[in-house]
């Protein structure tokens, strides 16, 4: 259904939730309540939980939850199909973040189907391409080292707050053209938006963010610079500037997109590094020559989020009837653990044959931040392992995971010999 991003209206989709709202076409024997993202079994060890789905669940099943019911896809092949066929699986109404229905906006480009989404991607793709993000390499390295300067002599840190949170936020501020002084404010907003698990808090925080970005957009139009927000604010598509709602939806989405995902990935990886000294040394030895293999495999092993779609027309997959209007989620980490594609899926093996991983999803909405994320992770590994090659979890630590759509440990306290 074509939508007008300049004049957005909230989509009207049925959103069944709970065991009493299972559509009649769903076979009883495919209905489960897995507790993905918030149940106790999941929170005890989310990545193991997701790998285990291949042993305990059919390849496609219908998950019932308090907030939403939806089909789960766990097979690599099925996710590739769904994410690459927008004619069957649409992006409309894709984002769960609550917006004011009287002052609505679409998240751009993720809520826009082809062919229209391409005009938005063309504005930013050059900036986020491998060549584009390479320009940030020096800055990223400098920031990583400044953060390490603050902790190296102390012999301990809480990794998530000392490194994983500030690094991507600072780089994001640099990339979009916002002052570094905003770090603490943005960190608060990111936490409130992504980890409050409270619709009201999320809605309020989103309003604060869009209020702030509204003034930023006006400023960038008056005073253009080379940052991504200015490029979007001043972009011309088919000879016309973007509508205000398009610019706002684009900038707000970028704000959300880059902050929590890299944060969670770094936290997952550093937890693993803390517990595997021999692999730390292996990475230290190989990170310059084999950085892309190492980063790609770590992204496969510790991908952090999901990719949802709305069924746009009836389709049958593996004998399962999906009906128009059903929601599906591709459990990307589970797809990355598909034993038919990645044998010994939980093993970190940097020399696996190169295949498509789903950390950044696939299809036309494949994450534009993927190259930046890879670069940040590569540099973080290079600089941290160079300066703090040996470290471990603080004795007595109990690792906990918070509920939510981006998966990683809540706190990673580390100790080392300073």
């Amino acid at each position, binding site marked *: 259904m074509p939508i007008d991003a300049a004049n957005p209206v909230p989509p009207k989709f049925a959103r069944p939730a709970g065991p009493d709202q299972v559509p009649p076409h769903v076979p009883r024997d495919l209905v489960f309540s897995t507790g993905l993202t918030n149940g106790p079994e999941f929170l005890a060890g989310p990545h193991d939980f997701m790998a285990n789905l291949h042993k305990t669940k059919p390849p496609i099943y219908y998950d019932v939850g308090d907030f939403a019911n939806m089909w789960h896809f766990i097979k690599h092949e099925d996710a590739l199909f769904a994410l690459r066929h927008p004619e069957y699986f649409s992006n409309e109404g894709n984002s769960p973040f609550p917006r004011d229905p009287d002052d609505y906006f679409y998240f751009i480009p993720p809520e826009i189907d082809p062919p229209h989404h391409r005009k938005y991607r063309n504005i930013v793709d050059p900036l986020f*391409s491998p060549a584009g993000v390479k320009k940030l390499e020096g800055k990223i390295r400098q920031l990583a080292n400044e953060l390490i300067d603050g902790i190296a002599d102390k012999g301990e840190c809480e990794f998530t707050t000392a490194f994983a949170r500030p690094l991507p936020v600072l780089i994001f501020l640099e990339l979009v053209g916002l002052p570094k002084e905003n770090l603490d404010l943005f960190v608060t907003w990111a936490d409130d938006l992504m980890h409050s698990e409270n619709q009201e808090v999320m809605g309020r925080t989103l309003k604060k963010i869009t209020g702030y970005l509204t003034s930023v957009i006006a400023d960038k139009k008056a005073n253009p610079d080379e940052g991504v927000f200015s490029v979007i604010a001043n972009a011309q598509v088919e000879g016309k500037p973007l509508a205000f709602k398009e610019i706002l939806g684009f900038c707000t989405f970028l704000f959300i997109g880059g902050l929590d995902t890299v944060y969670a990935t770094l936290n997952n990886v550093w937890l693993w590094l803390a517990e595997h000294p021999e692999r730390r040394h292996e990475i230290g030895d190989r990170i310059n020559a084999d950085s892309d293999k190492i980063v790609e495999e770590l992204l496969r092993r510790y991908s952090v989020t999901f990719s949802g779609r709305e069924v746009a027309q009836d389709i049958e997959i593996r004998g399962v009837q999906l009906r128009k209007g059903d929601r599906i989620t591709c459990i990307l980490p589970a797809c990355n653990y598909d034993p038919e594609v990645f044998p010994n899926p939980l093993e970190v093996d940097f020399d696996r044959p190169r295949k498509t991983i789903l950390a950044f999803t696939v299809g036309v909405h494949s994450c534009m931040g*993927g190259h930046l994320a*890879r670069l940040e992770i590569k540099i973080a590994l290079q600089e941290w392992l160079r300066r703090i090659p040996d470290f471990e979890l603080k004795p007595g630590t109990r690792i906990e995971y918070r509920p939510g759509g981006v998966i990683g440990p809540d706190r990673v306290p580390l100790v080392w010999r300073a």
Partner: protein
Amino acid sequence: MPIVNYMEANGNRHSIDVPMGENVMRGALYNGVEGIVGECGGGLSCATCHVYVDDAWTERVGGPSSEAEEQLLENASSHVLPSSRLGCQVLVTGELDGLVVHLPESQF
């Protein structure tokens, strides 16, 4: 600016100015050429920018530039030939002015 000629499987042809140093995948994407998807944006991660280098150009273009490109090509959905390359790994130079690439019927 060098020209790259994209020949779609359905017979459509496009002659596109592609800046020096840009890759064949982006030359298509930025100019609305159908038949190349490039979903991972050039990260050697998706194999959806598969092209067949025309026989007259294979020697100048050469084969896959890395082990990763070779391995990923194995995942390409269309038949892989000796002339197969991933478009994101083919950089346009003066030497490749006039390059002809044939696009598969589909990238997945």
